[in-house]
């Protein structure tokens, strides 16, 4: 069965650089979520999209932005990177909109290291 695809899997950047993380949801899934997991921490919700519109926002820094495209893939753009942005970034998708609950399927994550 198809799973959530994230790219790249690993990314190394310098402070103040920018990074773009990509997420390809499971086919026919219309909702995408982004989570950030720092070292030794539990995943924290960043932002979500339903039918290409932002549906919810968590503790996402103003330096970060995201969008969902017409083919439902999503990109998380991170600018002015800081050392504290080093984390594992997960994308998840689900087949339902925000009105109904359903299983969220997580991608393998992108490990971002900021030097």
């Amino acid at each position, binding site marked *: 069965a198809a799973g959530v695809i994230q790219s790249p899997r690993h990314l190394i950047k310098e402070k103040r650089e920018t990074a773009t993380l990509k997420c390809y949801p499971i086919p026919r899934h219309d909702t995408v979520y982004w989570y950030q997991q720092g070292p030794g921490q539990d995943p924290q919700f960043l932002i979500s999209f339903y039918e290409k519109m932002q549906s919810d926002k968590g503790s996402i820094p103003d330096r970060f932005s995201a969008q969902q495209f017409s083919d439902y893939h999503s990109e998380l753009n991170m600018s002015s990177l800081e050392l504290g942005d080093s984390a594992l970034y997960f994308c*998840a998708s689900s087949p*339902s909109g*925000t009105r109904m609950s359903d299983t969220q399927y997580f991608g393998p994550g992108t490990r971002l290291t900021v030097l």
Partner: protein
Amino acid sequence: GIQVEQSPPDLILQEGANSTLRCNFSDSVNNLQWFHQNPWGQLINLFYIPSGTKQNGRLSATTVATERYSLLYISSSQTTDSGVYFCAVEQGYNQGGKLIFGQGTELSVKP
């Protein structure tokens, strides 16, 4: 916001032993999922279980929504079961669907 507490925080088992992991939550939930994060960082979905009981091989889970807790049972543990087990909940309807994670239970299974 909703609080999610998992216990125990750490657990060391001998291979073949059974264990029970607990997840308490402070308010009614619309969704509850159990995940296993393996040593490579991958989050594996184990159960979607907002209520009731489910079983999948050596793993089973029970959620008692009225009492606001969920239990994950691991039987005949194997070294490959090692990793961190997370419980995550979605609070209420029309809350955007975001999951709130507990702090996790770190399981180590020794051969």
